[in-house]
């Protein structure tokens, strides 16, 4: 069956993502809506509050950990501005693509699926006190057009959620 192709790619990708030298540890968080609604507005049923289409439009939210995993930047390099010293570049993208693998696969304890609107922290180091930089998953795309597909995650930087010093009370 053709499905074996994408299943096979996924298995190989998982192996590569977890063991790649450029992989980062990551933590994935999901929004939980705090607003409680009786499910109707003026007698008519409603899915959310006024003007609310999905969880991303909700203002009263909290976050909960979905699980930990591994993230590998899958952004193809494009021309970038260089620093004045010409020893590095400043990057080019507002959107960055990542391959993300949960530590445990779905079906095992702690296994999860990364979804749109989740926030992912890349752990910059290996300690509990290492800085964590935040990305929000704004879309999921596939590179293979056969189920079960091979997902790649489009992210935006969320520097307002960064935790530069996890040991401090707040930064």
């Amino acid at each position, binding site marked *: 069956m053709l499905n074996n192709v994408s299943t096979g790619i996924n298995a190989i990708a998982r192996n590569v993502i*977890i063991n790649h030298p450029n992989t980062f540890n990551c933590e994935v968080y999901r*929004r939980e809506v705090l607003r409680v609604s009786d499910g109707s507005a003026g007698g008519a049923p409603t899915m959310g509050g006024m003007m609310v289409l999905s969880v991303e439009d909700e203002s009263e939210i909290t976050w909960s950990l979905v699980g930990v995993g*591994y993230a590998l930047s899958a952004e193809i390099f494009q021309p970038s501005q260089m620093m004045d010293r010409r020893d590095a570049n*400043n990057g080019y993208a507002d959107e960055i693509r990542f391959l993300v693998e949960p530590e445990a696969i779905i079906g095992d304890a702690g296994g999860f699926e990364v979804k749109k609107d989740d926030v992912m922290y890349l752990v910059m*180091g290996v300690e509990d006190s*290492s*800085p964590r930089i935040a990305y929000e998953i704004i879309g999921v795309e596939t590179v293979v057009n056969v189920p079960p597909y091979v997902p790649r995650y489009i992210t935006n930087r969320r520097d307002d959620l*960064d*935790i*530069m010093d996890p040991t401090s009370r707040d930064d």
Partner: protein
Amino acid sequence: MATPIGALKGAVSESQARAKADATERASAAHILNPNDIQGDYDVQRMLVTTLGGIQRSITNNDLAAFRQNARTAGSRFKGGITARQIIDLSLNGDRDRARRQITVAVPSSAKAIKGSGGSVNSLEVRFITNASRDSKETRHHVAVQFMGYPSAVASGAVTPMRAAAMIRKQAVRFDCDCGRHRYWFRYISTIGNYHAGRAENGYPKIRNPDLSGVACKHVLRVMAEIEGSGVVQSFLTRAIETGRASETGSASVRTNQKDADRLAEKQAARPKAKGNTGDRNYDRSRAALRKSSKTAPTHKKKAGSGQRLSALASKPEAHDALMGIITKLGITKEQAIAIINGVGK
């Protein structure tokens, strides 16, 4: 113990004296870009300058067009009044930051019902005293806030004074502050938005704030936070509404006594200053929840390659350029990358 708010006696006259000095200075100011100038009557020989676009330079015809457009946009933004919440939400991040770090105290000192041209009460003006920041030449600032919902709260017997007080602090306000930030940056915006409580300002802030950005200074923001959330302000407004209902015309004049004000100021100053707050309470709460759950995240079974490399090399200055190369590819600015490397190398 002396508190930053000082003596309440004489506070109103001090505030009025400052307003008068401000008006006198303004009356003799030569380099004002008034509405007629903006309309097109500007005489180039006046050599006025602007900082529109980032550099200080002489005003051109194009600038006037930009000013007209900015004034139109800013003027229509707040039609129908501005609420305490909107002031906080629409303010600049830098102002909120300063309000949080530097302005620890905001105490309502006195309130007076303001009468309009017809002789009827049209708002309640509450005078707040805040501390001044350490770098300021003043020791305190006076913020006047007019609650526009006051007359209807007094006239309506449908709700208790306390409920009415809770309502008016969510309704439209006008405000004024005696600090330089308000005077040179924001007073023009509040005038064209029609939410100024003091002297109107017709001169365009061509040098300080040509883009007309922001709403309120740190003192006003601190006061608005107090109006939104403080029980003391609520009971102060309740007293004013009770007095207003007792009088025939709705007029009221209430004061805080020195002892209560000092006690409140001490209590406020002793509050821990939350560093990460933006003023948007929903956002702050969710961000705090995110931080908290991050602390309980389980450790990874396998330390990923990039993380290991970062930890191994962050303390070696010679490897920083290489690490910068890796990190900046993640959409991180140079400053953030340096902060990360320093954070890992600690």
